[in-house]
């Protein structure tokens, strides 16, 4: 026999002003199985909770209905109260008579009627509630960081510092990411390599960190605390354990005409290559698209000169499987290619470059050894025009709708560096708005204007026309002077928008995390949970979540690490007990539920059953892994026989609510 207690909250006047709470308590007191029905000023207060606890003990209640605010608000409060009084917390139901009743309706009579119906539905449901126990699931004490840029490196270092094993998966042959390509950093103008490479080395030398370079995540299974990840180690045709990084092979390789992606294709590399001198791991990689041995079977020079015997033309992609408790996504960004904008002549004029290309042109390790020269004729440029917002803040399909955030600052940096090094060069910056919020940022921009005399012009470049004499005509508007300008420039630099890496979208699908329309990962809460994804156990680090500069990226990387460490510190996590379960006697083994499960929580096994006629039969039946199931209920509807049901929201419970409402 059910013994149900009903507790109606006034919520001060929030509920009591429009709902006659005494009448609600009175009406629900007559429902079958209800042994006590009370109202109280503030049910969630300590004395209100005591009221519930005492009633549970005094009346030996088997179920509790609280008519109060939304269950999203205080369901946990009352569950905990029930638990402390010895009642299973899942025998508590909330009737939402505030957000969905008293705050919506003005008429006391109809609001009271509705509150009674909602209460009755909750009573009908609680009749069928079963005590549930939250299971525990162990946490694997190892983290995976996807992406080895500054974000991934920082996250990995922080997690390792806390004493946990951490693996970095990087798709390129070296870690370092975009920051490795950058020359100087704003607003301090210190050398990027000088602050990044020590961190790369630190990551490589940290015994808790394993770097899987030239690797990709191929598959992700499992759930928070217990992910199983398949990592594809792409064939680099060089034995990582043997290669000493001496670079002899790269010197001797006869195939020297491969566009060097590290230098943005501004110079060439060999088919066997080490991306840059400070690469980590410092191991050669053979590019199979260009290697003469791999393409035609003729050459083998690198193998002959390698004293370590590290060259292995027969190497194939290798799959490794590893278990992780937490995953941090740090897939970063790429600048877009501005070739869709015909007016900027990027695709056919070599002296129109993107900012990242300029970064390489100015870098001491770049194609010109740090001397800024025009790519077309290697002469010194005397007039340089910077164009801001190329592809950012666009409302068309060519560009991105958002502000890329970092361009204003790096353009100021470029302008300043050029004026510092080549005072004879005139620098023009065409801007729409200069956006420099951040510590010492606006001061930095003002320095470019005031100290370095960079010409900032409010307006946009409309057309870039390469001329026969090698100069470039830049047609632009100066909105403040209200005139149209023509600048006879030597070089044009486009501050192109940045976009999430192309690998992010398929990765999001594997991780079952959400993305926005621009393919940036969506955080669990835009203000309060900025480094967590909505999927438990998956954290976000760096520009994969949105455009960020280096300090912000590092801050977020450490924050993501802190969240991951918080998870890894636990020995086990409590699972949601409101999960699906299959009644084996009714299951047909038809696999419909398995097909709709987004988590792969359903597996099948052949089980022996005793049939009514005492014979035995082997049947294929579904079973749900309660630690993997998240309780969406998709399977319960796919199941034609009704064998699949959901704890806490069972077929009969929902149907009881329907009946109570429709009566």
């Amino acid at each position, binding site marked *: 026999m059910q013994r149900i207690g009903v507790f109606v909250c006034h919520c001060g006047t929030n509920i009591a002003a429009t709902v006659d709470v005494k009448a609600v308590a009175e009406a629900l007191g007559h429902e079958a199985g209800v042994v006590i029905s009370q109202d109280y000023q503030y049910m969630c207060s300590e004395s209100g909770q005591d009221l519930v606890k005492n009633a549970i003990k005094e009346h030996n209640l088997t179920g509790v209905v609280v008519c109060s605010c*939304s*269950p*999203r608000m205080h369901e946990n409060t009352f569950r905990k109260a029930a638990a402390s009084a010895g009642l299973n917390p899942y025998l508590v139901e909330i009737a*939402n008579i*505030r*957000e*969905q*009743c008293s*705050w*919506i*309706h*003005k*008429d006391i009579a*109809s*609001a009271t*009627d*509705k509150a009674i*119906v*909602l209460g009755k*539905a909750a009573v009908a449901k609680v009749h069928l509630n079963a005590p549930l126990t939250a299971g525990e699931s162990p946490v694997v004490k190892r983290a995976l960081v996807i992406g080895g840029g500054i974000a991934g490196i920082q996250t990995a270092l922080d997690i390792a510092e806390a004493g946990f094993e951490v693996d970095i998966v990087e798709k390129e042959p070296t870690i370092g990411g975009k920051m490795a390509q950058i020359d100087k950093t704003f607003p301090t103008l210190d050398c990027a390599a000088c602050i990044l490479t020590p961190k790369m080395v630190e990551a490589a030398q940290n015994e808790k960190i394993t770097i899987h370079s030239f690797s990709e995540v191929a598959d992700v299974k499992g759930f928070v605390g217990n992910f199983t990840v398949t990592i594809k180690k792409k064939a680099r045709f060089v034995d990582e354990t043997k290669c000493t990084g001496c670079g002899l092979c790269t010197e001797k390789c006869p195939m020297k005409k491969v566009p060097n992606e590290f230098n943005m294709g501004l110079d060439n590399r060999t088919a066997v290559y080490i991306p840059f001198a400070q690469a980590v791991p410092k191991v050669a990689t053979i590019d199979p698209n260009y290697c003469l041995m791999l393409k035609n079977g003729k050459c083998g020079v690198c193998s002959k000169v390698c004293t370590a015997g590290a060259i292995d033309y027969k190497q194939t992609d290798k799959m490794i499987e590893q278990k992780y408790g937490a995953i941090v996504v740090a897939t970063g960004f790429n600048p877009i290619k501005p070739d869709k904008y015909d007016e900027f002549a990027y695709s056919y004029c070599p002296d129109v470059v993107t900012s990242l290309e300029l970064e390489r042109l100015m870098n001491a390790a770049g194609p010109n050894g740090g001397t800024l020269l025009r790519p077309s004729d290697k002469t010194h440029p005397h007039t340089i025009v910077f164009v801001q917002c190329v592809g950012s803040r666009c409302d068309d399909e060519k560009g991105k709708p958002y502000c890329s955030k970092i361009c204003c600052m790096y353009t100021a940096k470029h302008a300043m560096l050029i004026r510092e090094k080549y005072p004879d060069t005139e620098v023009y910056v065409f801007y729409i708005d200069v956006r420099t919020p951040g510590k010492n940022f606006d001061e930095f921009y003002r320095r470019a204007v005031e100290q370095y005399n960079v010409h900032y012009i409010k307006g946009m470049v409309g057309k870039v026309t390469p001329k026969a004499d090698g100069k470039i005509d830049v047609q632009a508007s100066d909105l403040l002077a209200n005139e149209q300008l023509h600048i006879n420039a030597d070089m044009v630099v486009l501050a192109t928008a940045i976009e999430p890496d192309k690998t992010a979208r398929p990765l999001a699908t594997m991780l*079952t995390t*959400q993305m926005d329309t621009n393919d940036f990962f969506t955080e669990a809460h835009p203000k309060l949970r900025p480094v967590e994804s*909505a999927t438990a156990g998956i954290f976000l680090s760096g520009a994969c979540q949105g455009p960020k500069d280096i300090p912000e990226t590092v801050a977020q990387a450490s924050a993501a690490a802190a969240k991951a460490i918080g998870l890894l510190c636990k020995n086990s996590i409590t699972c949601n007990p*409101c999960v699906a379960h299959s009644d084996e006697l009714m299951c047909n083994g038809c696999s419909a539920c398995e097909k*709709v499960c*987004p988590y792969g929580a359903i597996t099948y096994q052949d089980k022996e059953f005793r049939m009514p006629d005492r014979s035995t039969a082997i049947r294929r039946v579904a079973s749900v892994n309660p630690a993997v199931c*998240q*309780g*969406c*209920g*998709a399977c*319960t*509807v*796919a199941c034609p026989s009704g064998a699949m049901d*959901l704890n806490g*929201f069972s*077929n009969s419970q*929902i*149907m009881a*609510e*329907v*009946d109570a*409402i*429709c*009566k």
Partner: protein
Amino acid sequence: MQVNENFEPVIVAFCCNWCSYAGADLSGTNRLNYPSNVKIIRVPCSCRVNPMFILRAFQKGADGVILCGCHPGDCHYTSGNYFTRRRITLLYSMLDFLGIERNRTRLEWVSAAEGAKFAAVMNQFVEDVKKLGPNRRLEDLRCRKQ
């Protein structure tokens, strides 16, 4: 059809916990009105709603049933509402095939931020069902309280 001015329909609304139920809460927080005919049943995801529940509601005397879930692509469980969309499209099409008035059933995507949309949808739905009058075609008179 005769329109009874005093007809107060029984409306059952199934709302997914993560978006639409929160959206309904938000319309409360913002004090946006909609008729008290609407009674909400919380489900974890719109894909938890079995066609049986919808038919059961009609059987027991509901005049309209509305199902609310996260916008496609925003499902907390990644794909639940996509399954919902197919199932419910086919079910509503079948009810239409059997001659049940189309405006008695509805599926709406309401996010946790769309309190105003929730109220507007409910106002519209109640109005539409009121126009249709009591559900005679799919109601089980036996279960109606006299």
